[in-house]
């Protein structure tokens, strides 16, 4: 029988990483994700793992690069301003085809911004996050259990596709407490890391982890290869969840903490006689374009509820080919939407 333990979202991320066999954590303190580092600092020494508080986010992501290049499961976590600093490393991870797990528990921005929950790093996470042609696989949990489950899964996906998997959370999810199942999971079958730097031991040719290609044709060929891998990810790994969409006229699209608030709004709308439903993207890249496009043939309008000035809304418009009106229910700067506000937008969409 599985035991349930009461945990904070941030701690569940750390526990999920440990369950996945991650023994290398490199971080730098920043609110509202510091519990991840604190949890790792306590647990890593007990499991012969490495916890290292680096001198900066720049250093910590490069330590992840080193540990991952050496063939180990490695992770770092931060919040918006810190993740911005990691950007250079995110691009190098992609250029070197290294697996890694990076957590962003978003806070309000730009600049130092605030410390309240936000979803304003959607563009940064899903549109590359740094220089060059590349993607990260972005997972957006919406409960404490999912913080653990998707962190665990992130390590498998990262190793499978040699990609950075990002957990994109927010301060609400990070601080929220829920009882969760932390029992061990069945290990996945994954490709061997024969590219890792472990020393040739005189038995093989040197392995090189590198992202420099001065010949444009070589670099293009490599980018083509990488994008073929991205295409496979889009095909096989896109995740979403729907709630009461079967007969819905208005579909709310929301992820993470906003999707929990949206769910309440949908129940309120139904009570008031408006047929509303929810589509929650679980992977933000790849984005669930197909189910959204299918819904566009059936529904009257979409409402995108997000804690930013409107970032995911662009992907909803693209996915639905603007066949239906797409309304935005937004808050920014750390202000959190209420179910009543989203309900108002649902009602307006239904009335138009």
């Amino acid at each position: 029988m599985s035991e349930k333990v009461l945990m904070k979202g941030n701690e569940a991320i750390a526990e999920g990483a440990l369950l996945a066999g991650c023994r290398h954590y490199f971080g730098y303190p920043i609110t509202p994700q510091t519990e991840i580092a604190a949890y790792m600092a306590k647990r890593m020494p007990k499991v012969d793992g490495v916890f290292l508080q680096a001198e900066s986010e720049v250093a910590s992501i490069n330590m992840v690069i080193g540990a991952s290049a050496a063939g180990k499961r490695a992770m770092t976590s931060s919040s918006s301003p810190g993740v911005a600093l990691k950007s250079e490393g995110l691009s190098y991870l992609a250029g070197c085809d290294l697996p890694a797990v990076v957590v962003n528990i978003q806070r309000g921005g730009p600049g130092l911004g605030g410390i309240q929950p936000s979803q304003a790093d959607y563009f940064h996470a899903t549109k590359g996050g740094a220089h060059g042609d590349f993607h990260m696989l972005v997972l957006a949990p919406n409960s404490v259990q999912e913080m653990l489950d998707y962190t665990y899964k992130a390590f498998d996906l990262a190793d499978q596709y040699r990609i950075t998997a990002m957990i994109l959370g927010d301060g609400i999810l990070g601080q929220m407490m829920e009882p969760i199942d932390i029992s061990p999971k069945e290990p996945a079958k994954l490709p061997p890391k024969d590219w890792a730097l472990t020393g040739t031991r005189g038995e093989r040719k040197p392995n090189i982890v590198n992202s420099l290609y001065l010949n444009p044709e070589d670099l293009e060929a490599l980018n083509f290869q990488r994008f073929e891998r991205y295409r496979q990810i889009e095909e096989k790994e896109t995740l979403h969840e729907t709630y009461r969409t079967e007969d819905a006229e208005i579909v709310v699209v929301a992820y993470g903490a906003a999707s929990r608030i949206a769910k309440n709004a949908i129940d309120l709308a139904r009570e008031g006689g408006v047929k509303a439903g929810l589509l929650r993207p679980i992977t933000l890249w790849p984005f669930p374009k197909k189910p959204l496009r299918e819904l566009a043939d059936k529904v009257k309008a979409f409402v995108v509820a997000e804690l930013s000035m409107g970032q995911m809304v662009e992907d909803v418009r693209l996915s639905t080919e603007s066949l239906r009106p797409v309304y935005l229910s937004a808050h920014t700067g750390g202000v959190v939407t209420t179910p009543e506000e989203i309900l108002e937008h649902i009602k307006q969409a239904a009335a138009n």
Partner: protein
Amino acid sequence: MAIVFEKPKALADVTMHYCPGCTHGIIHRLVAEAMDELDITGMAIGVAPVGCAVFAYNYFNCDMAQAAHGRAPAVATGIKRANPDNIVFTYQGDGDLAAIGTAETVHAATRGENITVIFVNNAIYGMTGGQMAPTTLLGQVTQTTPYGRTEAANGYPIRVAEMLATLEGAAYVERVTVDSVKNVRNAKKAILKGFQYQVEGRGFSLIEVVSTCPTNWGLDPVEALDWLREKMLPVYPLGVYKDKFAQEVGK
């Protein structure tokens, strides 16, 4: 017939891209000889910088990583913490190590990371065509100090060996050069010791090698060595700046 001159086994059998008279080639050779002598090539993992030595990942017969500009000590930290049995070294220029990567350098040293850093100080940014480096001398003309480096506009050259020697975490810091047979021998000894200390788990070592960049100094190789001796060595005196274990290892 006895072979008197052989390429070290740890050096890959490829043509290096360095300019004629550039000391990067000699330093590569010394690193490779040290790896041969300690028989550590099979366990070694090198980290190449961004700079003229970026292609170092093709020049050594061991596993290699290429790090972002200045981040080699952090990448090396990650590798070493992941696989403590491997022998991990970085090879970095002065822009890489003492400008953009200063934080990574200082903190790897202060943590006493058990890695070996080969630091090539040529008082200029070589790869990008000769701009001011943190180690550029006062008065030195570069592309970005066309009237010479001045303390008022650019501050003073950084003395990395002296600075790192103040850190408790640093086990061994020595400044050497490669302008003469005698000095090449000393440099070799220092690099060997840096690796030896790592094998013995003694912690962070850095060997600063005062180097030439004839191309961007606008000098021929011989003039460049003269300039190194006359201008650089007074600002960057050779010697052991830190040896935490000198007593123990008997020298």
